């Protein structure tokens, strides 16, 4: 069998705007964002779903963009960190991250912020985590809950101690 490359058309809806792309079917959402759409906000730290730097919101739920193939996302709403601010007004989490010095190198930061947006919604929707005590009550986002729910986002600079209060400031 000859070794061939397959292409397909897909329309990605990124932060509310449609983008028609003709892509290699192996293209991940992350590479589509970075290499086809020139977006700098979604970061590639491991390309294996292990670090969380590429976290985006897919139909409102957080997902690792490196683990999704672009061609599977036709017409699906994707929100990246670039879509969180309202014009010049930053998202409250973005403000909180700056205020609490919740990043150093900044490479995990877009993923942390997207993940926190999704995480806060999950908690509001009543989803428990591994550390939720009372599964029948609405989970309250105390520090332990925030830590547990953010475990998928690595920060090698070690800014966890500042990210937790930044998220808490917005979530509570």
């Amino acid at each position, binding site marked *: 069998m000859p*070794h*061939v*490359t397959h292409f397909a058309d897909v329309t990605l809806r990124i932060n509310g705007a449609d983008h028609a792309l003709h892509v*290699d079917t*192996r*293209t991940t959402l992350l*590479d589509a964002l*970075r*290499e086809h759409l*020139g*977006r*700098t*906000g*979604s*970061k*590639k*730290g*491991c*390309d*294996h779903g*292990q*670090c969380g*730097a590429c976290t985006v919101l897919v139909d409102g739920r957080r997902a690792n963009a490196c683990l999704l193939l672009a061609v599977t996302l036709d017409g699906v709403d994707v929100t*990246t*960190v*670039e879509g*969180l*601010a309202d014009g010049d007004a*930053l998202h409250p989490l*973005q403000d909180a*991250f*700056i*205020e609490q*010095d919740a*990043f*150093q*190198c*900044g*490479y*995990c*930061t*877009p993923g942390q*912020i997207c993940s926190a947006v999704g995480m806060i919604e999950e908690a509001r929707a009543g989803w428990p985590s591994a550390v939720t005590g009372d599964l029948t009550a609405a989970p309250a986002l105390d*520090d332990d809950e*925030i*830590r*547990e729910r953010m*475990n*998928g*986002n*690595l*920060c*090698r*600079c*070690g*800014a*966890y*101690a*500042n990210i*937790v209060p930044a998220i808490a400031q917005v979530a509570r």
Partner: protein
Amino acid sequence: MATTVAPTTLGAAVTRVEGREKVTGEAAYAYEHEIEGAVYAWIVQATIASGAVRRVDAARALRLPGVLGVLWHENAPDLGEVEDGELAVLQSRRVAYRGQIVALTIADSLEVARDAAALLDVAYEAEPHDVELRDDHPKLYKPPKVNPNFETDTEEGDVDAALARADVVVDRTYTTPAEHNNPLEPHATLAVWRDGGLTLYDSTQGAPRARDTIAAVFDLPPERVRVISPHVGGGFGSKGTPRPTAIAAALAAKHVDRPVKLAATRQQMFAFVGYRTPTIQRLRLGADAGGRLLALAHEVAEQTSTVREFAEQTAVPSRMMYASQTRRTSHRVAALDVPTPSWMRAPGETPGMYALESAMDELAIELGLDPIELRARNEPETDPETGLPFSSRGLVACLREGAARFGWERRDPTPGARRNGPWLVGTGVASSTYPARRAPSAAFARALPDGTFVIGIGAADIGTGARTVLLQIAADALEVPPERVRVEIGDSALPFAMLAGGSMGTTSWGSAIVRAIEALRERLAEHAGDLPPEGVQAQADTTEEIKAQERYARHAFGAQFCEVRVNADTGEVRVARMLGVFACGRILNPLTSRSQFIGGMTQGVSMALHEESVLDLEFGDYLNHDLAQYHVPVFADIGDIEATWIEEEDPHLNPMGAKGIGEIGIVGTAAAVANAVHHATGVRVRDLPIRLDRVLAGLAA
């Protein structure tokens, strides 16, 4: 030297200048710069640990639509020789370690470049490999110097006689594993050749130095090479000097005559971008019954590669830390068939102080003395080896301040005596230290007609907050609000400056900025009338100033306190609380400084409990080469962690009165954790990381 900058903005908790760019995702890191027509390179790695490439068959790869080229040793352009053998990319058929770069594929898409790499047929002549460090390894030798330029061995007095007459002797061997820096941004380069010159958008800790090295590799005059690096996603040493990725990107771009993007994969970062050497350290401490050290011997075995000698200065902190009547330090390295180790946050101090501070804890227990008191009793009046006065030495102040804040005086020293359900609870302490240095740097300062100022320096902000702190320094030196100052960094076109390393970025760059501003003031005083549209500029270089500075032993100090819970059934160690207290001269920005300290401490907890690159002896490769298997802390691993500092006025440092703070946070942390684990359980784990199985084996014994 007097502190010359009156602090107005300095000392204030100014948020990061580039904060908005980073939280909105606008900040462009190396791979993310938009260059028209850029194509993609992919690295092919050796699958043997020693031997040679026999043949590369690129036919199938080259037939793949979209492939623009394949490079290997037979068709790669010749490169100039540089000291770092890792940069001789594709220059020989020799394979020095598994994972070394043996070929590059270049294609018009990332997917095709990667596919082509898989289609490349590389045949090898394998030879037996030797990858395991042992303290009796026949290849251990004495390197001429240890990093960066310390004496390999030192000896003072008769150590053996002192050990023989000591009332108490601790003789222990501690080991630390290979550890990989793993900055979250992989090493990445976008290389552009234009008119015979080379521009690299590179993930580097020092654009000017990278420019000079890369120019030498490509036999170009330095002015034909430019390295641009506005944002760097961490480095912790591994981006301190150019790595093979930068050379590979430039080679590939030259080969296809197009701009080329290249990033190491996370897996590849366990091969050719550097790591911390494993160490085997024998510590011998001899003391009299009063706890005064009579002998201190610190002997280290560690590894380097066959490509380049890197000898970590692991025993160096033992030369200045404590007063001891006699002292011996030594380093031996074995050149193995492994990747070249390199800088990882506080090379030398980090593994060395783990061993020394663990041994001090063991000695305190043998003596029945409080570990803080033991350290205080061995406080030297001058630098033990050089006899130089300390410019300031805040160790005991940090220990005492930390003890008060942490509640140390309530501590019962008995190990294994506190239990809460399945959890054994204990506390530990350790000292920290790191040299307070600066290196020659240049900067310009420009006054513009609109009343604003521009500062330019080839500095780097790898997450330290340098851009922000340099702005504060400049604003105070200019005596204007920071809003009127812009600081340009991260570009080799700016004046040559020290790289971000050795905790001497801010001190080196800040000194140059202050001197440039002083020179600008003189120019402005001579200037009559309005400023010209391009402004008035002055430049300064600190080479002579640093050469002429008074001789002092300049070091930062700190104390690390830790409380752990250890599960008696599973051996799981949880860090319940950590406190670091530091003496680092004047703290220039409490917000970003605290982040640096806590970040270092977090990496120290990681070293104590998580990090370990596991070598597969059969294949000669680091097995756990991704972030699922190479463990670093996640949110749930880091709870109550706090850093603070004592006021320290030191007039012998630099115009800011500051000591570097980037590395000291990691130093001592692992020992504090290990000492706390011992206090909790009675189990002394002398091999990092403190894994469950190691704790359980001790609990069962």
